[in-house]
């Protein structure tokens, strides 16, 4: 990973190289991952219970997915490094596993795929812009990634899960939930944090006052 890019420190080894992770990037991305891991852990329990009453229209369960897509989008918007979304999302899943996850180890695979989904959104904008459009795009790609994984593992298109009555509404519900929670709430969260001055080490927190 970024290990190859490490070289002896010098003044220009700072923000100039967008691929190289500074220690503060690593630690703060990890902080986000750990924090959302705790959120995941709580949401896992809630979603597991909440999903059964939603059996009257199963595709609507996709609405519960948005929370799981937050760390990737938030880390990407905040840290702005290639790989931040994947790192934060995977770590969040791993932390929720250590806390006790009702899904067991598979949740780490989910964390990885969901992070990669968000990452794709940032990659498509080449890590150049981090405004609303990028946030929404990353949320959409993240939502699609988890839909694809869910649908292929649990609900393959079949007589039981028809394309029009299940696959498409489920995907739509997941993406909608992702856009609202990961995209909109995620962006608002990053902006609120920036206003507290806590992000002064990051481009996301920089405006002269």
């Amino acid at each position, binding site marked *: *990973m*970024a*290990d190859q890019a*490490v*070289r*002896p*420190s010098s003044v220009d080894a700072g923000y100039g190289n967008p691929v190289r*992770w*500074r*220690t*503060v990037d*690593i*630690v*703060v*991305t*990890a*902080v*986000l*991952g*750990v*924090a959302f891991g*705790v959120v995941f*852990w709580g949401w*896992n*329990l809630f979603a*597991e*219970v909440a999903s*059964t*009453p939603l*059996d009257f229209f199963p595709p609507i369960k996709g609405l519960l997915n948005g929370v799981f897509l937050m760390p990737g989008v938030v880390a990407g918007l905040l840290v702005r490094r290639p790989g931040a979304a994947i*790192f934060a999302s995977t*770590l969040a899943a791993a*932390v929720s*596993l*250590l*806390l*006790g*996850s*009702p*899904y*067991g*180890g*598979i949740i780490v695979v989910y964390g990885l795929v969901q992070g990669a989904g968000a990452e794709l959104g940032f990659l498509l904008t080449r890590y150049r812009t981090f405004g609303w459009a990028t946030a929404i795009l990353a949320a959409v790609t993240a939502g699609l990634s988890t839909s694809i994984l869910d649908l292929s*593992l*649990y609900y*393959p298109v079949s007589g039981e899960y028809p394309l029009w009555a299940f696959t498409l509404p489920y995907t739509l519900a997941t993406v909608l939930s992702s856009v609202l929670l990961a995209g909109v709430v995620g962006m608002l*969260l990053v902006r*609120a*944090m920036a206003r*507290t001055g*806590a*992000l*002064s*080490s990051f481009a996301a927190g920089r405006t002269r006052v």
Partner: protein
Amino acid sequence: MTASLSLGPVPDARLGRINPVAQLTAMIVVTLVLLTSLDVVTPAVVVAAELCLLPAAGLTDLRDLWRRTWPLVLGATSVGLVNVLLSDDATVVTGVGLGLRVVGLALPGVLLVASTDPVRLADALTIHWRLSTRFAFGALAALRLVPLLVAEFESVRLARRTRGVEAGRNPVAQARLVGGIAFTLLVGAVRRGSRLATAMDARGFDSGIRRSNARGSRLHPRDAGFVAGAVLVCAVAVTSSVLSGAWAPIFVG
């Protein structure tokens, strides 16, 4: 709240002598087997085996055990209940099976946290699984902030009361209160994380020199034995499930 992580490892747990990567491998085996079975026998056997490991993980005190596992017990119970009550074709046995499955999937995480110092986990992951040392130890540093956050949660809640903010019984107000506290804690954690990064760099974390490991991490025959034991337990579980006629495999999930 997040008792398990903030409580950290039990000192001198015997399970801690099993290398963390061996524990993780066993966890993967258990996850694969439980995710593919939807009956009551398989998870029952697996959970029984996991419970036998509790003393080895130093979880002999019932109160300590409860503090680490209550959310899990709560989750498993409600999963079982909700399925029995709301699903058309679910019997009590199915409900118990689903509840046990949740416990069986989640207990390995609890065992690992209880028996293993996170530093040993980072050592093992970087040495045996070749994870990047910068990322592994960066994550470790962040993990160390969790107990601080748990301790601060209560004082931030009290601090809100001094400002005239409390939720009472209104669930919407409660959610807003917890959200506000979480934001305060997150901002504090990011600030702490930034300072921690500076402190780490001041001790050469960013130097570009290839990092050595003072503790090392060795794999012993007992680690292979542990993984073999996990495979054996799963084999026994599936076999007894098939023999009893309860076997109900699914693709995944």
